[in-house]
């Protein structure tokens, strides 16, 4: 006997993600999910973002890694609340992990919540966490061909950060080709050239992000 189901395979994740999104909206928190390869500079980008925006906004961070508390400790050292999620081998974060982490934070006191996803260019793209925007970071040493190899992550991102821009002269990175391919995959996404550890180019990214934070605060119930 045939039984029709017609249900999303990730329905459990998506339902919880919608609950997260509602929770964030009620508290007027803007949530950004940073996705990148291991070593592209996710944590450095977060630290640069904190330095740029901490005077204006109350910021908290959720760190996703397979193991260790290294990243959460780096963030906490700057006096910003950081919750570490260890996925224990899983290659991406899911909405129930975010929910458990969020339950340990006081959302009412937070304007901007930054989620650092597990270092991976594939898996995080299929999972809604309840965030308002996914942002993708590519670092120059990874090469300009990555949008050809991992197109999906460039398509689901609302903005792209080109990090380690200061190393452009050392690597054979064709910036115009990179921008052209990203533009084809995702015509509306801005590309921010940045050197997070030096603070170069952080302003444009911080302005984009703060516009979004303001919009979220304005929409809070």
């Amino acid at each position: 006997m045939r039984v029709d189901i017609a249900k999303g395979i990730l329905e459990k994740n998506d339902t919880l993600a919608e609950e997260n999104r509602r929770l964030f909206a009620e508290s007027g928190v803007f949530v950004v999910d940073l996705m990148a390869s291991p070593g592209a500079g996710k944590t450095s980008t977060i630290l640069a973002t904190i330095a740029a925006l901490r005077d204006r906004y109350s910021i908290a961070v959720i760190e996703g890694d397979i193991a260790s508390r290294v990243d959460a400790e780096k963030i906490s050292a700057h006096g910003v609340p950081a919750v570490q999620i260890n996925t224990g081998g899983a290659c991406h974060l899911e909405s129930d992990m975010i929910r458990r982490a969020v339950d340990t934070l006081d959302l009412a006191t937070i304007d901007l919540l930054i989620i650092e996803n597990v270092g991976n260019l594939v898996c995080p793209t299929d999972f809604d966490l309840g965030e308002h925007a996914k942002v993708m970071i590519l670092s120059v040493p990874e090469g300009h061909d990555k949008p050809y190899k991992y197109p999906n992550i460039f398509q689901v991102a609302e903005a792209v950060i080109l990090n380690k821009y200061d190393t452009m002269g050392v690597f054979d990175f064709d910036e115009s080709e990179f921008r052209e391919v990203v533009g084809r995959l995702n015509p509306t996404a801005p590309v921010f050239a940045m050197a997070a550890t030096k603070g170069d180019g952080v302003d444009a990214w911080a302005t984009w992000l703060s516009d979004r934070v303001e919009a979220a605060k304005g929409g809070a119930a």
Partner: protein
Amino acid sequence: MHEMGICDGIVRAAVEAAEQAGATRINSIEVTVGELTEIVEEPLQFAFDVLRKGTLAEEATLSVSFIAAKSQCADCSAEFGHSRFDAKCPECGSFMVQLLQGRELRIDAIDIDE
């Protein structure tokens, strides 16, 4: 890469529906996967072989239908199929397009014995 987690969702949904229908076994499970997701059939089938053990789906087959990407142009309303890389409207050249299908991850139906 994350087919195991996806497949876990498939087996759970199938078993839940089968139990509700009072099934003694699941013969087959049909799913639809959009070509713009990161799901690949071979690891999905591998995960299914592992995860079906000890469930009502122990003897079941998993049939996967891939669905091609299709978008509609926001400027001229043309509908067109495309690959990942050229979601540009073939009629008017606009990049402002709305994806209609291609990111599905859906369990469609199961076949059961009562």
